[in-house]
C-alpha cells in the first residue's frame, strides 16, 4: 500500500476542509477501501477518517421516516432498526460477516455504489433521500451506474433517509465465496406504491424493476409478476452466473420477497 497522511477530524466542517487537498479521500469503515489500497488500485495523498465525527453516527425515526447517519455501521443498523424497520435491519445483518459489519458503514456503501452492494437496493426500493454536507439527492438521481454516484469531489454522505414501509423484505442470493449478492432484491410495500430495488444483476448497477412495481401496486402477490420477464440484455455475465441466469433470479427473488412481506 502507498503511504498517505491520516487525519481524523471531529466535525463535518473539518472533514470537508481536510478533503480540499487534491488527492484526499474520505475513509469510512474502510472495508472496501482498505483492500483496494492494498492492491495499489488507489493512491490518496490523505485519508480523512469520518468515524471520529459524533454527528455522523446513529439512527432515529420520526414521522414515518428513518434517518441513518452516514458513519453508522451495519451491526448498529441490524440491532437498532430491528423493531421499526425489520427489512432493512435484516439486510444490514447479512452484509459480509460479523467483523465487517462492525466497521462497514451505510454512507460508505452508498457512496461506493458497488454494483453488488446491498444498501443501494433498499435505497432505490424505498426511494430514500441521500443527504450530503451540501444537499439532498433522491436515490433515483444518486446512483449513476457501477461505482458511480452524483457525489461531487469532497462531498460527504451525512445521512440516508428512508420512508419506512408497511412491510419489506430483502432476498439475497449469495455468491458463496464473496457473500455479496449474486443478485439481491429489496421489496418495499407502502400504502400507495410498491418499490422493487435490484442489486448485483445489471451492468448499470442498482435499478428499480418498475414493471414489477406497477404490477405489485395493484395486486401485492407473487402471481402479479408471473407473466413478466426481465430482459437479460444489460445483465452482468460472469463465471458465477450468466446474464440470463441473473435475469431469472431477479424475478424469482422478487416473488420470494413479496411472499415474505
Amino acid at each position: 500500500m502507498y503511504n498517505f497522511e491520516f487525519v481524523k477530524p471531529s466535525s463535518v466542517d473539518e472533514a470537508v476542509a481536510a478533503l480540499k487537498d487534491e488527492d484526499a479521500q474520505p475513509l469510512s469503515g474502510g472495508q472496501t477501501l482498505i483492500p483496494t489500497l492494498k492492491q495499489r488500485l488507489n493512491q490518496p495523498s490523505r485519508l480523512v477518517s469520518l468515524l471520529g465525527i459524533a454527528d455522523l453516527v446513529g439512527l432515529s425515526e420520526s414521522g414515518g421516516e428513518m434517518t441513518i447517519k452516514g458513519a453508522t455501521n451495519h451491526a448498529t443498523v441490524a440491532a437498532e432498526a430491528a423493531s421499526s424497520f425489520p427489512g432493512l435491519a435484516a439486510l444490514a445483518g447479512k452484509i459480509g460477516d460479523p467483523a465487517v459489519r462492525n466497521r462497514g458503514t451505510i454512507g460508505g456503501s452508498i457512496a461506493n455504489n458497488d454494483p453488488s452492494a446491498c444498501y443501494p437496493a433498499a435505497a432505490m426500493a424505498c426511494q430514500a433521500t441521500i443527504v450530503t454536507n451540501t444537499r439532498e439527492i433522491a436515490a433515483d438521481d444518486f446512483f449513476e451506474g457501477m461505482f458511480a454516484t452524483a457525489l461531487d469531489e469532497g462531498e460527504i454522505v451525512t445521512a440516508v433517509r428512508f420512508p419506512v414501509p408497511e412491510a419489506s423484505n430483502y432476498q439475497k442470493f449469495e455468491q458463496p465465496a464473496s457473500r455479496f449478492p449474486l443478485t439481491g432484491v429489496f421489496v418495499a410495500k407502502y400504502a400507495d406504491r410498491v418499490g422493487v430495488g435490484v442489486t448485483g444483476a445489471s451492468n448499470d448497477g442498482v435499478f428499480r424493476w418498475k414493471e414489477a412495481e406497477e404490477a405489485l401496486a395493484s395486486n401485492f402477490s407473487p402471481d402479479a409478476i408471473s407473466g413478466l420477464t426481465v430482459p437479460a440484455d444489460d445483465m452482468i455475465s460472469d463465471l458465477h452466473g450468466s446474464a440470463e441466469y441473473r435475469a431469472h433470479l431477479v424475478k424469482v427473488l422478487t416473488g420470494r420477497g413479496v411472499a415474505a412481506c
Partner: protein
Amino acid sequence: MKVTMTVNGKSMSGEAEGRTLLSSFLREELGLTGTHVGCDTSQCGACTVHVDGRQVKACTMFAAEAEGTDVTTIEGMANADGSLNTIQQAFQDYHGLQCGFCTPGMVMAASSLLEQNPKPSETEIREHLHGNICRCTGYHNIVKAIMAASGQDVPAVAAE
C-alpha cells in the same frame, strides 16, 4: 505518528505510518504475534481482534483508527493464572484445531458471539463464523467446541 491504545488492559504506544494496519502494529510494533495474518485481504479472519468490545479484522483497519481504543487480542484471552479460558479449553477438548493458524481468530470470533448470544444454536455459530476460514478441520469440531464452551450439550453435527 505515535499511536496509543489499551491492549489487553495495558496502555501501549508505538510508531505508525498512516498506512500501518492494526495487525502490523500489534505484531511488529508491540510484538503481539498471536494475531495471525492469513490472507491480508479481509477474507480469512485469522487476524480477528476486539476493538472496544467488537470483533474486527485487524488487517482491515488502520492502527491510527485504534488510537485511544481498548483492544483485546488472543494474548488477553487466557485466565489470570495463565490457564486456558473456557473457549480455549473447549477448542483443545473438542479438537477444534489442527494446524492452529486460524485459531486465534476463531477464539476471538467465538468469544464475541458468546457475549452477544450466550446459548447460540449450531446454525447461529456457523453463521457467525462466516468471516473465519479454517482449511483443516472442516469446522465441525470448531462448532462443537463453541457449543461446549457455551455450556450446551454437544450433538453430533450434520454431515458427520
